[in-house]
């Protein structure tokens, strides 16, 4: 007789809500007439993300103690619940940004179905409690993202980007799977805490497995040197998809990395701390230096996201309650800034109907004052200037590094920030210091498309970016309680 495990459906609700939305969206693709398909689909996707976020917030409230579910396959704790709230917010904003994107009618509902499916996969991934669910969640959202990247077959480079992402991503997944197999081979256990309890620390094969798991997760977090897919995929994908990838994937990958490392490999802490610190430095260096020579704004932001992965990995390397707080806090303004910045790029792209480079941002700040100021705030936030949460985020990350005695990570972070000033301010320079007349660029004709949903999405991102600077205390309080669910 098969023993059915008890399933805590409430704990899985954030993922299930998105999955339900995804299923309904596939129905919409078939049954709703073409004219009403786009608004129906967007509304359903938006509602799915909001429902998921609300459930995650409830879950956060009702789970003061971390508990394992379904034979240790999943976790119910505040760490994943808070990350799911941030994820749901990012997804909802991504839906707002997506609405005005030109895409073929026959793909609209599938697009949103994939977006929600990716969200569901990430929510599932965040709760993963053993190596099996870890890999399952990773593949779940990755496959949805591969298709999303390539979905706009009319867009030059979209298909190519999707293919690159697929191949490189598959290598990452395979590495993770191989690493998991090695870890399982050594310990005979799948669930994170039992692997930790099995006492096989420092076993050579376990360490190799650990290294491969870090590499596999590093691919998803687009940390250098595992970031090769990032610029191409970010550039080629439809911009709202890029916005979603830059924010949500990063949230999922980093939150899970932290959990896996802390709960599964406490005995090898010194090893993986050093490894993560090295990856952080490489990401900071590579991301920032490569961004200096880019002209395409999406590529600049892609490399900037690599460098931000570096900053957040500093918090992971600290492996302390302060580091965990720093990571969760950092993710909030970071997600908002990436969504907002790509949203503004999407707006410019739609009005020019061609890729946005620094050249053809000229005069944008004066033509579209709100979007210009918003972009200004986003890039300053990424640079870590005050009046944005990006500043506090960097401050916390550095504080966590110092707290652990990694003063050299502060030095690396500071140098990286200095370098990054050049290209972030280059975007501001491009928007304000040149006139559109200098550009000699014929607009696509007619007045620029007015897109209230995109404006709403950018406004939300703006409010979060600036608001997180002022409301540090409440955000840190929730991050602190979330961090208590990890065993430090």
């Amino acid at each position: 007789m098969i023993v059915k495990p008890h399933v805590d459906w409430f704990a899985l609700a954030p993922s299930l809500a998105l999955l339900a939305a995804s299923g309904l969206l596939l129905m919409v693709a078939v049954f709703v007439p073409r004219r009403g398909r786009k608004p129906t689909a967007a509304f359903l996707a938006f509602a799915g993300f909001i429902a998921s976020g609300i459930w995650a917030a409830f879950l956060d409230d009702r789970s003061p103690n971390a508990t394992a579910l379904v034979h240790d396959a999943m976790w119910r704790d505040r760490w994943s619940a808070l990350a799911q709230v941030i994820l749901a917010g990012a997804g909802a904003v991504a839906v707002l940004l997506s609405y005005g994107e030109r895409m073929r009618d026959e793909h609209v509902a599938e697009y949103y179905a994939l977006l929600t499916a990716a969200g569901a996969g990430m929510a599932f991934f965040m709760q993963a409690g053993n190596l099996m669910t870890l890999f399952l969640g990773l593949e779940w959202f990755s496959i949805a993202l591969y298709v999303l990247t390539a979905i706009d077959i009319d867009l030059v480079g979209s298909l190519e980007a999707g293919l690159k992402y697929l191949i490189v991503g598959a290598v990452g997944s395979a590495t993770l799977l191989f690493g998991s197999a090695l870890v399982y081979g050594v310990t005979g256990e799948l669930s994170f805490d039992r692997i930790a309890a099995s006492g096989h620390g420092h076993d050579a094969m376990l360490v190799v497995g650990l290294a491969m798991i870090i590499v596999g997760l590093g691919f998803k977090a687009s940390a250098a040197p595992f970031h090769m897919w990032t610029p191409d995929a970010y550039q080629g994908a439809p911009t709202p998809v890029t916005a979603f990838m830059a924010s949500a994937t990063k949230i999922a990958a980093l939150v899970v990395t932290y959990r896996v490392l802390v709960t599964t490999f406490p005995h090898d802490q010194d090893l993986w701390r050093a490894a993560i610190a090295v990856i952080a430095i490489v990401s900071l260096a590579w991301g920032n230096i490569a961004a200096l020579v880019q002209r395409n704004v999406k590529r600049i932001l892609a490399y900037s996201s690599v460098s931000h992965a570096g900053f957040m990995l500093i918090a992971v390397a600290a492996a302390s309650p302060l580091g965990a707080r720093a990571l969760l806090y950092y993710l909030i303004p970071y997600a908002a800034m990436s969504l907002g910045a790509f949203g503004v790029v999407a707006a410019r792209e739609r009005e020019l109907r061609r890729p946005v480079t620094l050249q053809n941002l000229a005069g944008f700040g004066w033509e579209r004052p709100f979007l210009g100021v918003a972009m200004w705030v986003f890039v300053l936030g990424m640079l870590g200037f005050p009046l944005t949460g990006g500043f506090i985020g960097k401050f916390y990350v550095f504080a966590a590094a110092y707290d652990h005695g990694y003063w050299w990570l502060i030095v690396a972070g500071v140098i990286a920030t200095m370098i990054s000033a050049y290209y972030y301010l280059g975007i501001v320079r491009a928007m304000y210091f040149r006139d559109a007349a200098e550009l000699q660029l014929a607009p696509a004709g007619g007045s620029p498309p007015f897109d209230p949903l995109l404006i709403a999405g950018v406004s939300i991102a703006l409010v979060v970016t600036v608001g997180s600077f002022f409301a540090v205390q409440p955000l840190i309080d929730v991050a602190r309680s979330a961090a208590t669910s990890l065993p430090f």
Partner: protein
Amino acid sequence: MMSTALIAIPVLGALLIAIAPLSSYWLGSLAALISLVEVGVWITAAARFDFSSSALQLDQRASWFSDLQVSWHVGQYRFSLWFVGMTVVVMAACTIYGWWVGRDRARAYFALMLLLTGAIVGVFTAQDLLLFYAFFEAMLIPLYILIGVWGGSDRMKATITLVVYTVVGSLLMLAAIIVFGLQQGTFDMTRMGTSSSQWLFLGFVVAFAIKSPLFPLHGWLPVTYRESPPEVSAVLSGIVGKAGLYGLLRIAIPFFPQPVHDWRVVILVLASISLVYGSLLAFRAPDFRGVVMYSSLAQAGLIVLGLFAGNTLGFDGAVLQIVNHALVSSLLFLIAGMVERRTGTRGEFSLLGGMARGRPALATVIMVVGVISLAVPLSTTFAGEFLILAGVFQQGWLWAVIGAAAMVLAAMYMLRAISAVLHQDVGSAVSEDALDLRVGELAIVVPLVVCLIGLSAWPNLISSRASSLAPTGFTQYAP
């Protein structure tokens, strides 16, 4: 509460201007009005100020995030009141100047000017290190746009140079702040103890030396001051540079007594080089703005001599001289702008000359300000420089000799500039169309001149009421 208000008024004013549905002219009027209200609020604050107390006054404290002990803590000491005062006065003059010359893209321009005012006042009132840093960085954002959009033809280079220098400096400071604050367990400057770390000290000093600017970190100065709009140059040299000097006297000196002692000679040498080298460059400068900007390098050197003299004489003199120089140098930059605008030049002396004839108001203003700036006896700058020299004399007679020699150089470069603009043969760019100062321009310039003359009559107003750096520190330098 009052300090918070002084920060909030211009910031909220900037937001109001960003959304108010008004024409350019009325936006300018609104900005001018807000900047004058700010001056009024400062006067009220000064009237309520208890000058007999060396404690932090007009303060407000609210927790910002508690796990790292960071708070919104603003307030003013006796000396910081004067820093805030010079800021609001000079910013009002510069904002009104922008209105007078009718800057295009008025909405953005005036919003940024007011934002800048709020940020600078924040720097001078913040009593929490992280808050101080936030304001210190926030100054750069409006400056970057103000120079990049309304600057001269080489403005791209100017903005990049400015940003590279200041961002490098301030990030070093950020690293120092994080380490220092976490070591102390709080970021509240009124609760912090001292540190003997050389590295932290240098992190702060480099940032402040870039901002001041001090030799050899003044590389951003020429291109930035020449390419900025004149009123922005006035703000940069008059006020923003003072943020660096303020940082030295509020943070670097009180919190790091041992490193100050160890590095004193090095810093005094660099200050002396700035003083002499700046004066020589000013003497050689081919244009009006060149003279003013290199003279501010020289003055920054002189003020640092006073700050690092290590006694109350030097400290009082430095504070007085900071206020003097804020007024003098912003006045000179505004006048340079007025001259450039009239003659359609960039202030090259080879094209100017003979402007005194038929332009009595211009000639009088330039003469008065020029004479005050070269520290003629009975002027407030004389009082400031005298105190500084007397103070630094106690560190060694050599420093005082260098300082005195530089005063002679100041007379040389300033008289050269005055005569090149006002006297000599009529320059090719000076036509009959170059009018005398208009009423509007006089309304900008004269109040600042009156402040200077008032201070000349009563320099004690500032110098006797400056020296307090309670609760940490400065008393240990009292002789």
